[in-house]
């Protein structure tokens, strides 16, 4: 398997990934954010697939926003959540009723940090489309132009992880890696048919070891952390000049950065070390933008108070550590310590395997907190891989929690999603049943896997 943010001695050039940044406080990023001057290029052609009005009856419901209802009812129809309530909730006669007693319901799982499609399986060199590692700043590239919709990883994320939305980020070789794209996790012939309607773009940035290593090894800037900052600051100054001008001449990179300065494009910033995050926060203040989230933020626990005060989320693994120098101080209590300080926690994957188990990663992080005396209710932990991710991606007004009017992105789990013994039983996206563990034909099989060994297997 590839270690996306790991760079061993063997496969350095293609192995670097990027982090993202999103801010819990970034508000509800609504509306389509394309390049303002270019209309909406590569627009989403996604339409919800047909569904039937459905009532999930008798489940334990975690609504993603911190609420829990035992023996509850979830109603959805026409692609949207209609109501969430207790067992007294009236169920219209024509709704498909699903007996969910003993089972659990959550919002669709959301991964804020994925490279599916950009680094698809099979992980061959010809598929290595996630890092435009030819210049330290490439804000002009868009991750969607690399996405291979036939990546089998999308199907595993759906079936095993209950993932209904995900943000695909460029890698972390570059200080500015390019624009992200947010997808609904539906199979498609084109990336446009997967694009989350109205989701804002993010600019992926990266601190630390990766950019300085990739370019330093070539004898060019940046080769140091101070070089990272110098190249970044100059790029922002140039972007400001562009943004303050008439913007008449198209410049793809500066359009992206100007979008950040305008507050329309979010910042997802790969950054491991606490001291570097603090410097990035000051760079953002100097240049006039907001960091939405630090990704791979293994040292966030050291500055949880600063992150809370600045309204910045930390997108983290539960317990990855030690694979690179800047991950040496990673501790499994990171998420719990952040939550305990009132800072925003998002559990992310950065991995085609990890994306299948975001719920498990959150549960481990919760338990590590419990053992040091930090007790975080299950319902809040579920928010780490649902609503908090949606907030940091600017799609919280549309999905991420089970609230009337939101997209009916719903997972029915066959047990407690924070238990090792549970798996998704059914997954709906915009009210359409896209995965059913009880119906072997109701699982997607990518073009790549057709007619090959293991086609349609349970996986």
């Amino acid at each position, binding site marked *: *398997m*590839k270690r996306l943010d*790991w*760079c*061993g*001695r*063997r496969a350095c050039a293609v192995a670097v990934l990027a982090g993202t940044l999103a801010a819990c406080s970034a508000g509800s990023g609504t509306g389509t954010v394309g390049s303002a001057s270019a209309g909406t290029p590569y627009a989403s052609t996604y339409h919800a697939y047909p569904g039937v009005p459905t009532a999930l009856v008798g489940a334990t419901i975690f609504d993603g926003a911190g609420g829990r209802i035992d023996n509850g009812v979830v109603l959805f129809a026409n692609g949207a959540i209609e109501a969430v309530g207790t067992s007294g909730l009236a169920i219209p006669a024509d709704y498909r009723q699903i007996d969910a007693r003993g089972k659990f319901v959550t919002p669709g799982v959301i991964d804020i940090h994925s490279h599916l499609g950009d680094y698809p*399986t*099979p*992980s*061959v060199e010809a598929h290595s489309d996630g890092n435009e590692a030819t210049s330290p700043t490439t804000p002009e590239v868009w991750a969607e132009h690399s996405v291979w919709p036939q990546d089998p990883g999308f199907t595993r994320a759906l079936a095993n992880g209950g993932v209904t939305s995900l943000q695909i980020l460029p890698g972390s070789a570059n200080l500015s890696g390019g624009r992200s794209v947010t997808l609904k996790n539906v199979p498609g012939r084109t990336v446009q048919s997967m694009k989350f309607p109205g989701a804002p773009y993010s600019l992926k940035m990266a601190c630390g*070891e990766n950019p300085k290593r990739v370019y330093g090894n070539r004898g060019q800037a940046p080769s140091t952390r101070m070089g990272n900052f110098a190249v970044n600051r100059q790029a922002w100054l140039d972007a400001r000049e562009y943004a303050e001008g008439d913007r008449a001449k198209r410049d793809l990179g500066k359009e992206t950065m100007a979008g950040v300065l305008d507050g329309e494009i979010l910042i997802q910033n790969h950054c491991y070390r606490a001291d570097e995050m603090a410097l990035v926060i000051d760079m953002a203040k100097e240049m006039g933008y907001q960091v939405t989230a630090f990704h791979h933020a293994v040292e966030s*626990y*050291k500055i949880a*108070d600063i992150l809370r005060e600045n309204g910045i989320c930390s997108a983290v*693994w539960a*317990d*990855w*550590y*030690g*694979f*690179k*120098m800047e991950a*040496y*101080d990673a*501790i*499994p*209590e990171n998420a719990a*310590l952040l939550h305990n*300080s009132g800072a925003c926690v998002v559990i992310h994957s950065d*991995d*085609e*395997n*990890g994306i*299948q*188990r975001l719920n*498990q990663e959150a*549960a*481990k992080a*919760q*338990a*590590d907190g419990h*053992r*040091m005396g930090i007790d975080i209710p299950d319902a809040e932990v579920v928010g780490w891989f649902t609503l908090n991710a949606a907030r940091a991606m600017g799609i919280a007004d549309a999905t991420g929690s089970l609230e009337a009017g939101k997209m009916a992105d719903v997972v029915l789990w*066959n*047990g407690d999603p*924070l*238990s*090792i*013994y*549970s*798996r998704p039983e059914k997954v709906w996206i915009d009210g359409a049943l896209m995965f059913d*563990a009880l119906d072997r034909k109701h699982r997607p099989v990518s073009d790549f*896997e057709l007619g*090959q*060994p*293991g086609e349609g*297997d*349970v*996986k």
Partner: protein
Amino acid sequence: MSALRLTATLLAAMAATPAPAQDFAITGATVALGDGSEPIENGTVVVRGGMIVAVGKDLMVTMDLPTINGAGKWVTPGLFASITNLGLVDVDAVSESNDVDAGDSPFGAALDVAPAINPTAQDFAYSRAGGVTRASVTPEADSSIFAGQGAMIDLGDDYDTVRLPRAFQFVELGERGARLAGGSRTSAHALLRNALREAGTFGEGARLIGGRTARSDAGGGDIGVDSRMAGDAERPGDVLLTRFDAAALVPVVAGQQKLYVEAHRSTDILAVLDLKKEFPALDMVLVGATEGWMVADRIAAAGVPVITAALSDLPVTFERLAATQSNVGRMVDAGVTVAIGGYETSGDHPRNLPQQAGNLVALNKRPGASGLTWGEAFAAITSVPASIAGMGGKVGVLAEGAIGDVVIWDGDPLELSSAPERVFIDGVEQNLDNHQSRLRDRYRTPAPGDLPKAYDW
């Protein structure tokens, strides 16, 4: 705090020799034996002289024995982590701290991890705190298809780490082996066969017969041939292997040292099994075997055990097109001996073996999937890998006469919410502090107090 609790802190230097074993009993616990059976309620475990002397339900414990109340706890054998790089690396991407592979080495099969293993590496302490008490340590192939010789270790907080050096030779076939061999599986197979033949004749000339010297502990015998002690037998000019590499393969071709073979594709696995026709003495273990389920009957018939990661389910390479999480369950159902091991992403560490195993229990609830029962899953990270490592009955089980590796957990060890509370290795309670736990304690409150955080230790 229990009277048994060690008072050692991180200030104490690591002991050059293990501390004396304690005699104790744990009563009233849920006890998982590790042998594939389901857990026992209200079980008792008695350890004396570093060994398990009694295990069972409602056992009477003699009055003289310090007793740990296990009510609400789970007690298990220590976990056995297979094919790890424990002690070979501090930080993967810091090359000078990483002894896992040796791409520029003139040697392949002769490489021996034993003198390189460092029990003070943090991953050792993290794994120990995760309940891992024994492991195999393997080099990774980089200079040749032969990675070199792996060792069996314990994770005790002392320097008496390597319990069985040169326990196995590791060879890469499949895509990786083909690249290392010059670009094709054809070359990998030619190199392997040539190497085994050279070793066979070299052994005769050098009078290296791979004899064993007795060793007291669970591993049984040591491998008598240390490649560094290779004799000076004349060799014809037409050889590919260095003298050390040839010597290292003598016990392999004689069947006295296990040969771990990494292969994933169904046809590659069959080619591995076919090696027995040419080299009948080979004592092989399949590593990886991602498509093993497709040829599970053949693997079972050959009696070759498998060590594999539990959750590979993507066609990461063309040799893994049929990857499925049901691989382990289907092989077990076919009668293959399967241990869970292998670490394929940055998030996979030995301490997360229970998560791999637990997922296979969850899989059993999925129509069409093949998982494991709880007992089978726990055995796949305890007794089964210990047995494959040659330590069956001594390690990875709670049974009379087994080594006193005992873990007390705060709940079901396969559940995400559980963790070890106390860990005993050879009957010695282990210090579970480490770099991570100290950082945790320092940053319990992130903002500094009257002095900077650096004074908080």
